[in-house]
Every structure is written in structure tokens, then in C-alpha cells.
């Protein structure tokens, strides 16, 4: 239900962008996207993980530079180039999920500092900052002390300070990235009231959020992105959950389905795994030769769950049963001994040591096995072992001495996978296997995973990319806000069902 009844929305356009593209080394994050935001409009920007929402707003905030050919118009004026400082000057203010505030500075400083630095003085005028801060807080209609360190306030209040900061910068458009993820219902209501008040002043708000139910409470327009492309802009009155979800998932790019050749006995049982602030009551089974996919939106707790299976995130309660025996996985070292492998989400910071060569990276977990009778490294064995895996996984170029950082994204991922295959694991956990990898290489990795599963490995895959999920999953767990919200069979499921479970609580699914 729409909730701007009675408020006359100014139809004047504030921001218009066209032909916005952004290409990264191996991915095209945005492909000729457009968007129009009117003054005083509350506009939702939605799409799945990886649709390009975060890239688009970072371009608007001047953090990224779009590819050549982008047209950006603010209040009718053509803008050549945006930087973080100039975008603020033009009235665009962005509030990221971490708020980018200083916990150790006062509220007043957090609100007024940006503008104060620009003035170029050497001396801080506290009085002036107080006035500016108080003014902004009053505009929000809330009661927040301005002289205390920001860190002493609750998260919800800190967010209000972030909004106050935007007001102090004379923002005409405030972009909020996942604003309600850390708020209680009451705090969300307060936030929305404030947003409606801002509307009256002609300030537009762009909401990037997954919480469709909430969006309908306050947004009048929805812009949908999918796979970096602009799908359309729709008035809220014409939309509902189902329609939005089908717009988000209907797609042309798919992968061929790679079915399993048969699933074996139970390998892993997880029972009622719980960790405060991470996930609750997680229970599932993993079988041999099975690819189990855990999907859901970013922030649903998927990575936190699998990290607990690898000794990186100790659970508060629950049981893990590996091959019939109950285990407590205390450290990654322990997990590796148990035969569990983990390919983490960020291959550059977590998966690889970029400054060392490929061979050393691949052999890192199994060094102890490649020694001679004196306990010294057997270099011949090292070379043989790494050559074996380079061939098996097809790493290109096949130069073991090359530094890991010099390989392409797809090959870097292969190095990480190769590293773990060398440990001969029973279970392979892989978090976003093809993140940042081009389509051709993605397919190769899917084939590799299917091959490994068919040889008997149990694979737990976290993925946000539906085509991938549909292509190789034997079973799918959909997580939402720390819980398992849905279980599906890979052969029979469709995108919309998955997305429904990812976005909506059961009661909201029609």
C-alpha cells in the first residue's frame, strides 16, 4: 500500500542518468543503465545480488567513474565528472551500510565536519557546528544529544545522524544503501516518517533494499536492474511482490542444466546450529556426490553458517555430525584434518597470497606431506604435485613460478580450488564460486564442480547468481535473515520460488 496519499509530489526532475555503463576487468557491472529521480520522490532501486545497484549508486556518489558515454544531468545541468566531493556539492548524499561515520567524534562533528573542512579554516568553530548540527537534528524532528561521542548512540540513532549529516550538506537527493537492516520495527517506522517529512521539503530519497514489504510502505517508484541492465521503472501502485520478483529474475542468460549422476549416502548432518547475531536453527544434510546450494540475499547469514563448518566462526549451540560422528570444529586446521575444504568469497584477500607464486599457494595446506626423510621439503615432489593439479584444473598460464596476483580472476579461482583439491577433501565448501569471473570461465568452473561431485565429493556452494544455482544445484537451501526459509530440489525448482523465499517471509508469499 502506498503511503504518500495527500502529498503532492513535485514532478520536476532532479537527477537523470542515461547510457551509464561500468566495466571492471572481467565483468560488465552496468550496461547502458538509465534512471530518473524526481524532486521529493522516494524511489526504490532493486535487483538481486550483482544486479548492479551498488555500482550505480557508487557512480552517483562519485566513488566510481562510469565508462565513456554516460550522460549525467542534475537539475537540468549536464555533469562532466563526479567525485565524492563534487557529488556532495551537487546535492547528492550517500549513506552506505556502515554509515562512514566516526564513532570517536561527537555527533555535532559527524554532522557538520564535511562542510567545515571545505571552508578552509584551521580553527574549528564549535558554535557554528553546534548550530548546524542542532538545525539538522531539528529538521528530522528527533531528540539526539549533539555533544556525545557518536559511538555511544544506538545504531538507529547513528543512522539518523548520518541523515542529519546529509541535510547539513544541503542534500537534495539522499541515497540509502540497505538502511533498515539493523533497525527494529519501531525504528523503521520512525525512519519512514522522517523520509516522508523530507519529501515535503523536496528532498528525494533513493532506497537500495531487499526488504520488499517495507519498500511498499514508503516508496512511490521502483527501478529494477537485472544483470547490470535496466529493466524498467514502475509506479508502486502498479506493482506487488510477485510482479517485482518476476521482473528481477526473468532472464535470457542461462546455463545448461547439469544434473547429478546419483547422490550417495549422508556425509554431513547439521542440527539446529545457532549463533547469536549470525544465524538460528540451521539444520540440513549433505550427501556424497551432491551439490547443495545455499542461496539468499547478501546478509542472510550464508557465509556465517559455512564458516562455522570450517572452524572460523564458533557456533553457540547445535550439532555437527560428520560421517556419523559428532564433531566440534574448532579451527581451520582441524577442519582440514577432518577433510573439509573452504574456498572463501574473496579470493584476493582470503583465498590467495598474491605476492607469492602459484605453486606455493597451491601447496600451502599440504606442505607437511611433501617432505623427505629428513623433514625437509622434497622439491621434486613439490614440483610434481603442483604440476599435477595445474594440469588437472587447467590453470593458464601453466607457469608455477608466476605470482598469484598476476593471474586472471578465473585462473585465480582455479588456483584456490586446486589448493583445496590437493588436500583430497571429502567436503568442499565454496563461497560465490564465480564472483567477478566472465561467463565463459563461469561455465568451466561449473563443469569442474559437477565433475568433482560426480567423483564422490560433497559440495556446499553459496551463490547469489540464480542461473548458476539452477544449473548445478542438486538441492537448494534458501536462507533469509539468518534462517533457512525454503528447501527445493534442483531439478524442479524455478527462479521465482527461490526469490520469493529469499525476499519474503512465508506469510507474504502468495
Amino acid at each position: 500500500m502506498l503511503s504518500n496519499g495527500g502529498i503532492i509530489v513535485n514532478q520536476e526532475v532532479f537527477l537523470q542518468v542515461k547510457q551509464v555503463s561500468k566495466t571492471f576487468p572481467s565483468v560488465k557491472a552496468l550496461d547502458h543503465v538509465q534512471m530518473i529521480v524526481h524532486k521529493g520522490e522516494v524511489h526504490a532501486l532493486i535487483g538481486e545480488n550483482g544486479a548492479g545497484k551498488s555500482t550505480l549508486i557508487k557512480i552517483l556518489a562519485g566513488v566510481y567513474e562510469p565508462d565513456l558515454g554516460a550522460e549525467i544531468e542534475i537539475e537540468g545541468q549536464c555533469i562532466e565528472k563526479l567525485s565524492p566531493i563534487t557529488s556532495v556539492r551537487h546535492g547528492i548524499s550517500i549513506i552506505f551500510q556502515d554509515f562512514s561515520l566516526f564513532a570517536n567524534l561527537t555527533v555535532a562533528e559527524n554532522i557538520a565536519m564535511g562542510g567545515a573542512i571545505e571552508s578552509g579554516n584551521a580553527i574549528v568553530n564549535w558554535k557554528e557546528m553546534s548550530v548546524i548540527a542542532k538545525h539538522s537534528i531539528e529538521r528530522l524532528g528527533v531528540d539526539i544529544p549533539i555533544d556525545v561521542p557518536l559511538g555511544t548512540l544506538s545504531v538507529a540513532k547513528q543512522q539518523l545522524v548520518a541523515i542529519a549529516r546529509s541535510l547539513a550538506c544541503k542534500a537534495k537527493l539522499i541515497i540509502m544503501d540497505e538502511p533498515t537492516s539493523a533497525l527494529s520495527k519501531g525504528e523503521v517506522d520512525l525512519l519512514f516518517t522522517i523520509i516522508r517529512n523530507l519529501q515535503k521539503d523536496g528532498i528525494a530519497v533513493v532506497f537500495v533494499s531487499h526488504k520488499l514489504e517495507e519498500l511498499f510502505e514508503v516508496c512511490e517508484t521502483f527501478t529494477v536492474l537485472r544483470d547490470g541492465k535496466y529493466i524498467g521503472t514502475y509506479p508502486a501502485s502498479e506493482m506487488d511482490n510477485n510482479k517485482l520478483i518476476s521482473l528481477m529474475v526473468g532472464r535470457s542468460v542461462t546455463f545448461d542444466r547439469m544434473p547429478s549422476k546419483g547422490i550417495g549416502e549422508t556425509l554431513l548432518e547439521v542440527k539446529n546450529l545457532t549463533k547469536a547475531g549470525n544465524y538460528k536453527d540451521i539444520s540440513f544434510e549433505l550427501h556424497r556426490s551432491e551439490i547443495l546450494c545455499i542461496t539468499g540475499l547478501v546478509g542472510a547469514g550464508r557465509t556465517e553458517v559455512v564458516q562455522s563448518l570450517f572452524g572460523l566462526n564458533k557456533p553457540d549451540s547445535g550439532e555437527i555430525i560428520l560421517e556419523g560422528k559428532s564433531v566440534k570444529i574448532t579451527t581451520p586446521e582441524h577442519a582440514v584434518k577432518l577433510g573439509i575444504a573452504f574456498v572463501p568469497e574473496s579470493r584476493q584477500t582470503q583465498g590467495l597470497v598474491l605476492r607469492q607464486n602459484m605453486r606455493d599457494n597451491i601447496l600451502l595446506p599440504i606442505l607437511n606431506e611433501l617432505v623427505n626423510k629428513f623433514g625437509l621439503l622434497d622439491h621434486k615432489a613439490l614440483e610434481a604435485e603442483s604440476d599435477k593439479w595445474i594440469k588437472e584444473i587447467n590453470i593458464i598460464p601453466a607457469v608455477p613460478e608466476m605470482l598469484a596476483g598476476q593471474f586472471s580472476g578465473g585462473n585465480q579461482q582455479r588456483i584456490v580450488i586446486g589448493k583445496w583439491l590437493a588436500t583430497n577433501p571429502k567436503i568442499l565448501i565454496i563461497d560465490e564460486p564465480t564472483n567477478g569471473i566472465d561467463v565463459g570461465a563461469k561455465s568451466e568452473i561449473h563443469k569442474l564442480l559437477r565433475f568433482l561431485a560426480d567423483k564422490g565429493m560433497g559440495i556446499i556452494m553459496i551463490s547469489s547468481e540464480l542461473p548458476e544455482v539452477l544449473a548445478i544445484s542438486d538441492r537448494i537451501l534458501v536462507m533469509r535473515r539468518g534462517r533457512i526459509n525454503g528447501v527445493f530440489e534442483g531439478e524442479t525448482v524455478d527462479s521465482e520460488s527461490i526469490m520469493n523465499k529469499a525476499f519474503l517471509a512465508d506469510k507474504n508469499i502468495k
Partner: protein
Amino acid sequence: MKHWVKTKEFMVLMIVLTIIIIVSIGNGKAFLTTENFFDILKSNLILAIAAMGMLPIILTGGIDVSVGAMMGCASVLSAQWMINVTGNIPLAFAAGALSGILLGSVNGFLVAILKIPPIVATLGTASVYMGLMSYITNGNWISNIPAGFVAFGKQYVFGYIPVQIFFLVAMAILTWWILKYTFLGRGVFAVGGNMVSAERIGFNVKKIQFLLYAYAGFACGIAAVVRTSIFGQVDPKTFTGFELKVIGAVVVGGASINGGYGSVFGTLLGVALMALLENGMILLRIPTFWQKILIGAIILAAVSIDFIRAKRAEAKKIIVDVT
């Protein structure tokens, strides 16, 4: 107010009070006299002034182990100035301050511009400065300080208070003012709290770092001349290892390497703690050799608590909005 009780400064204050109580019980007769109090004050003025310069550096996660050497150099240079040019008191302090700023600027250049890790850069400059100073003096005392200056140093205000107190008060107020009322100072906290955001918001991190090391040099210069005024001479050998005491005072006073937290008041408390510890040990007949052990242990405890706290906060973070 409730917030203040939870702060580190409060904890340090409690420790200081505890030490006072313990020493009073042990040897209250000698401890609780005005004479003793002002004695402590006089001997630790220098430490406090130098600590004022070290505080901002530690707040941004840096460190400066050339403090002792800078003080030594500044002492010698200002002494030479006094002896050979003029014994004019303000000018003497200016000479000290200027030498200090120069020496500190070299550190600032190495750390801020060349991005050399501060521990290593200042380790090097410490050797250079110390060597220079020792070379100029050849290891000998400088005792021919102009009489006027020496007389000045012996003065007292209101009976017991040594005149040098003004310098400490001035440095403390200056440091406090810079930290609170200038963008340089707020930048220190911003950088310590969130360096990336600080740069994005417009702070010039390089400039800030450079100025901080120069400021530490300045503080050392003033401390050096103050020292000369207290003792009436320059003894090149007393400066070795002084920086460790300074760092200790700042760290113990609650300044956190992890996030831009700390205050002038806390640092003064830290100095007080070190001072009372030393005095207490003397009065309680504990061999002074225990001093260093205690200082080292206290620093280790202070930083350990800091890091453990940070770890706990990380672990308690709510990552997922669990339904």
C-alpha cells in the same frame, strides 16, 4: 556523567588513587608532604611536556622513539645558543623549540611523505640525533649556562611551585586546544577512528602526520630547555631511553592505538601514575630496579587489555539481522 565513569581515564584515575593509598599506608610521613609533592612535580614536568607531543602521534597509530635524542639535541643546541649568542630567556626557549621542530620535521618527512614505518624511521633518526649531540658535547656536560637563565630556573611561584610549571600548563593547554579546536586536532581523531572516511571527508592525512611529528619535536624542544632550567646544566647521558617513559605514560594514560581514543587529561594521569610509582618505590624502599620492570609490565598490560577489548567487541558484533 555515567559515560565518564566507564572511560579509561577513570580507570587510570582509580589506579593512581590506589597507588597513593598504598604508598600513604607504607610511608605516609614522607609521602604526604607538600615538599614531596612538589618534588615529584618538578622531576616529572619534563616527562609531562614531552608526553604532550607524543600523544597525538600515538592517537594516529604512529610512534616516535627519537624523543630522547631530540631532547638531547635540542638541549645542546639551545645551550650553545645561550652561551654563544644570548642568554635571553624567551629566545633560549625559542631556540630549543625551533631545534625541536626541525628535528621532528625530519621524522615527519620520513613517515608522512616517504611512508617509512615510524618505528624504523625514528629508530634511525634517534641514532643520528643522539650521535650528533654526543659528538658536539663529546659526552661532556655543558655547565656554563648563563647565570641569568640558571637563576630563572630556580624560581618558585607561590612558595613551592616551580616556575617551570607554566610551561607544562601552557603545553597541556596548547595540546588540548589543538586537539579540540583545530582541524588538525580533529583530523587526528578522525584518522585514528577511520582513516578511509577521514580522507574522503577531506582531511589531508599526509599533512596531519607531518605536522604531528614536527609538533612532537616542538614539545621535546620545550621540554629540553625546561630541563636545562631545572638542572642548570646539560648532561648528554640522561636522555637515553627517555622516550620509553614517555610512550609508557601516554599508553598507560588510556591513549588507544586502536581507534583514535585518548586525551590530554588521560596522558597527564599517565604521567602521574609513572611519577607516583617511581616516588612510591623510593619511599617504600623498593629497589628502583623494579621500576623498569613495572613500567614494561604496565605497558604490556595496558595494550593487552586494549586489544582484548577490541577483539571482544568484534566478536559481539551483530552481522545478520536474524529473524
